[in-house]
């Protein structure tokens, strides 16, 4: 291996591929390093080889991540490590619009309180608005169930109880509603007519809802909030326009997490940290759905005990399909 390999030399291929798989001995590694340092052409060849290698890492590791269950536990150390620099960064970016509170413990403690509050048994009702329809523009209203399409999320209502019970109501243009939800154990879907669908897979009927294909589903607020600790930079700020409430800003820093690019959560400064307004941005930049959605807390009042059971939302005579 005395001769320096040409850029198309099989010996260079061996060095590059060996580098990708950690198969080179120390001498070969230094040799490759020297070749890279001396030749822009070799550097480009290595760079291009690494593009595929790097994307394979992301693709296949994200498959492993997607198959893992989502835990609501917040890794505190990660948040502590990120909160201070990102608090500073966001403060710079927003140019003084927000008053920075760069205490790392504040951001981590705030997120923990938000997750805790979202898992509390208190019933909450959120109104959902689409604030950015994305490249696809405003979609046509879905007139009725007849066409097989489901209504959009603009104007939908989300009811939540605790960490894992929800009811999500979307309305067709003819006034009929499509309801899906979860009672904590069973996922269910109730169209205006026909069969009611049940599944032990609690996520089964969430498909097609913005954020659901991502790591930050907003139908389960506890899950979504806890998800902010993965691949997001967090900062806690005080927003004058939020009426003295605190604001948690989350900016996605890792594209392997397919959640929204940005999230802003307003919540009261006191002990009750229930999220009052959640704005998710960059949900679907590819135009596959709305890109920006706001959830606003409109009601905190006890709902009927069986409100999160499917039977509450349909006539007892409706046929049931288990899936």
């Amino acid at each position: 291996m005395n001769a320096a390999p040409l850029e198309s030399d099989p010996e260079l291929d061996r060095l590059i591929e060996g580098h990708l798989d950690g198969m080179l001995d120390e001498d070969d590694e230094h040799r490759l390093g020297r070749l890279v340092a001396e030749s822009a052409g070799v550097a480009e060849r290595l760079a291009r080889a690494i593009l595929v290698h790097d994307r394979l890492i992301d693709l296949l590791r994200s498959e492993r991540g997607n198959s893992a269950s989502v835990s609501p536990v917040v890794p505190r150390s990660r948040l502590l490590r990120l909160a201070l620099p990102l608090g500073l960064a966001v403060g710079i970016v927003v140019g003084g619009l927000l008053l920075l509170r760069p205490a790392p413990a504040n951001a981590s403690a705030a997120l923990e309180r938000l997750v805790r509050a979202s898992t509390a048994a208190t019933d909450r009702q959120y109104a959902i608005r689409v604030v950015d329809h994305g490249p696809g523009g405003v979609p046509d209203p879905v007139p009725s169930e007849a066409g097989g399409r489901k209504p959009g999320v603009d104007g939908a209502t989300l009811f939540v109880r605790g960490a894992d019970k929800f009811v999500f109501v979307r309305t067709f243009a003819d006034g009929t509603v499509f309801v899906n939800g979860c009672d904590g154990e069973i996922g269910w879907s109730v169209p205006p007519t026909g069969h009611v669908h049940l599944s032990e897979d609690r996520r089964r009927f969430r498909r097609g809802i913005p954020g659901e294909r991502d790591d930050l589903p907003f139908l389960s607020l506890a899950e979504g909030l806890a998800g902010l600790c993965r691949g997001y930079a967090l900062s806690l700020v005080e927003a004058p326009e939020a009426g003295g409430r605190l604001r948690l800003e989350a900016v996605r820093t890792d594209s392997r997490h397919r959640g929204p690019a940005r999230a802003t959560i307003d919540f009261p400064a006191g002990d009750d940290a229930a999220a009052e307004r959640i704005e998710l941005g960059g949900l679907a930049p590819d135009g596959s759905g709305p890109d920006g959605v706001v959830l606003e807390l409109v009601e905190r009042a006890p709902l009927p005990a069986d409100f999160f059971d499917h039977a509450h939302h349909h006539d007892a005579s409706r046929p049931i399909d288990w899936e």
Partner: protein
Amino acid sequence: MDQRLRQVTREWTLAQPAVAAFLTSVVRDFRERDDLLQEVAVAVLESYDRYDESRPFVPWAIGIARHRVGTWLRSRRRARVCFDSAAVEQLAAAFAAIPAGDYRRLDRLAECLALLEHKARELCELRYRDDLKPAAIAPLVGMTANTVAKALQRVRDRLRECIEQEPGLA
């Protein structure tokens, strides 16, 4: 949401594949690469007010990554490190010079991966999903480490050819 915040997140989203690949070229351990990527993202956000918008974003972000890698290399002085600062400089320049279209082409990789036959797919999963080196993969698949390494090289060659094809031909 603040316009500038939108802008930096949009720019970072587009630049991240290049920055991540650059870091992967220098940092062999996947987890260390993840940590460095996170640090670079923070530094990019912190420094965004110093970014000259008349210049391309990707080389600027890679420049920040290069500085972080320099610090990382110094902290690993006694460890076995493959590239010195001159090689890192050269690699940073190489990644910055790759056209954006070449990064976009990588979006076809998932489609190409789906076309692999079972054995090739299994090797990819063991190498990339489970982060195993060829020597560790070998006993799992009944091959020698060298054969695994050669097989992985062939798989990557096929994947590179596949993403070069026109969409739909893969």
